[in-house]
């Protein structure tokens, strides 16, 4: 039976995370550092979804930028419209600059409604993921093909956005966002509030993901990852199992994109294309994609390293990023979270030996 320490391990770790994020960080960090942390936590929220879809579901989600972008643009469109309304304008500033008419495009109009825009930050990415997933998983596209397809989608969305300068802001994206549901983002107090919202959402989504991990669905997802064909012979359709993980991960990425906008004040094609999409999974890969805490800490650490190192060695960072990814996937598939287990196994030769016997018995068949 479980001891009390075992039973308290998960709630205890959760509580510790909550104290660190909501209690200590806001006191210990300057406004500038805290707003940087807010940005990293947005990447961590994406990593929660990556951990579910890739770590547990084996789906190489190399195009999370699409969902991050959809969520980010949905939020930014609303905030731009609110900013415009505050100054008595009918259309956002960039449209006056590049636009050909002074009427708002029809698909912008509903985003003036805050409830609609908020819902869209999550529902739009989930709907797109459901459509893509339905088409892709049913055709049994997987592995590298799925990864390439995800990348292509991320590229397509950012290229499309760049082409529509009059209605999406083009390469610049949606910038210079002033307010967040009536609060001025210039005020450091409101910036702190945004941080608290982001930290709370991260904790909440981690709790949700943890429930999915330990549920029967989580076990089934691992089974699909490890032997899709076998699961089919048990009477399940693996396409549906994968679809759930993919759609949930997309919703999380969308929410992260939406929260990124007030935290950083911008969303642009450069933040959601191929390179950032790879960036979203590197943190999870380094920290340990199958481990929720590993993926989250990895995402925060890699994002921190990126802002620190890319300031000093802008050219070197891209190579370092690629190297990190290759090393993690190639030599430590479980990420840093699995380092302890790997080292322990090295030290005690009993386990490999046992495995060897099993393999040999299999070969004799």
């Amino acid at each position, binding site marked *: 039976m479980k001891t009390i320490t075992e039973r308290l391990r998960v709630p205890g770790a959760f509580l510790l995370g909550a104290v660190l994020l909501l209690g200590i960080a806001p006191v210990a960090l300057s406004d500038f550092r805290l707003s940087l942390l807010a940005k990293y936590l947005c990447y961590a929220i994406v990593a929660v979804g990556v951990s579910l879809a890739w770590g547990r579901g084996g789906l190489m989600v190399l195009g999370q930028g699409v969902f991050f972008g959809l969520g980010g643009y949905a939020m930014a469109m609303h905030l731009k419209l609110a900013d415009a309304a505050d100054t008595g304008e009918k259309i956002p500033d960039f449209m006056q600059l590049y636009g050909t008419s002074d009427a708002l495009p029809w698909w912008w109009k509903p985003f003036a409604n805050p409830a609609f825009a908020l819902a869209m930050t999550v529902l739009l990415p989930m709907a797109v993921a459901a459509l893509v997933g339905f088409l892709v998983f049913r055709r049994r596209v997987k592995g590298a093909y799925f990864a390439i397809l995800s990348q292509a989608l991320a590229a397509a969305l950012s290229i499309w956005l760049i082409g529509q300068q009059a209605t999406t802001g083009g390469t610049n994206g949606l910038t210079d966002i002033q307010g967040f549901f009536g609060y001025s983002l210039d005020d450091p107090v409101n910036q702190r509030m945004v941080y608290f919202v982001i930290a709370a959402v991260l904790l909440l989504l981690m709790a949700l993901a943890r*429930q*999915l991990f*330990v*549920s*029967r*669905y989580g*076990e*089934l997802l*691992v*089974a699909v990852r*490890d*032997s899709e*064909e*076998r*699961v*089919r*012979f*048990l*009477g*399940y*359709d*693996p396409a549906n199992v994968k679809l759930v993980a993919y759609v949930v991960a997309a919703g999380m990425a969308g929410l992260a994109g939406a929260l990124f906008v007030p935290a950083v004040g911008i969303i642009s094609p450069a933040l959601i294309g191929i390179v950032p999409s790879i960036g979203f999974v590197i943190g999870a890969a380094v920290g340990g994609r199958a481990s929720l805490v590993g993926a989250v800490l990895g995402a925060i650490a890699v994002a921190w390293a990126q802002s620190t190192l890319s300031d000093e060695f802008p050219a070197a960072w891209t190579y370092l990023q690629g190297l990190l990814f290759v090393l993690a996937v190639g030599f430590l598939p479980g990420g840093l979270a699995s380092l302890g287990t790997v080292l322990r196994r090295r030290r005690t030769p009993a386990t490999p030996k*046992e*495995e060897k*016997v*099993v393999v040999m*018995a*299999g*070969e*004799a*068949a």
Partner: protein
Amino acid sequence: MSGEGLTVRDLRVSFDGFTAVDGVDLDIGPGDLRFLIGPNGAGKTTLVDAVTGLVRASGSVRFAGQELLGRPVHRIARLGIGRTFQTATVFEELTVLQNLDIAAGAGRGPLTMLRRRGSVPEPVSRALETTGLTGLRDRPAGILAHGQKQWLEIGMLLVQDVRLLLLDEPVAGMSHEEREATGELLRRVAEDRTVVVIEHDMDFMRSYARSVSVLHAGKVLSEGTVAEVQADAKVQEVYLGRAAEPAAVPVPEEA
């Protein structure tokens, strides 16, 4: 017609012009423990692949009044047909209990799926006992010995509540004791289910088969009880006539 028997009519499977199964007719009655034997490349595994929807086939395969050909794999599984593979495929990172629980759960609703497993379901604990794996239920399936993996697979078919089991060389690579334990397990399983076993081990076949079909070059060569099949001159020719094979024990295929 037999209620839950398997009826195969004129089954044909071709790969790029090579005909692996060439017009097979089979009638396997409810509660039968049928062995499919035959030399390498006779089409035994391909036959099972066709019945379970893994490969495309023409002809007709009916089970419990339903036509199986043309249905996707998971739909055929839900009709109560389960199979194992030559190399045991269990979910290695999951525990024995989790493996069985997943096998038991194809009909679960979303709410049950999103919750953690509270207690061990009744059929799962019964299967743990039947297969003798109760003591190993919390160990990852990947560390099980070869024979135990095969039993776990049979256990998964039991909790899946299949009415037709198709087993592909379940005793290959097993020790003598493991073979006997498996044979007894199959006998118990066949009490209220239909079991089809592909096997190369002639001693095992003689001890446990209720009926035998001999396949050769994609066709049914002979069919009957063990004694009838052994007395069949055509069977003797296929097995004994091959120059390199002095004994009646053919080599296992695809080792």
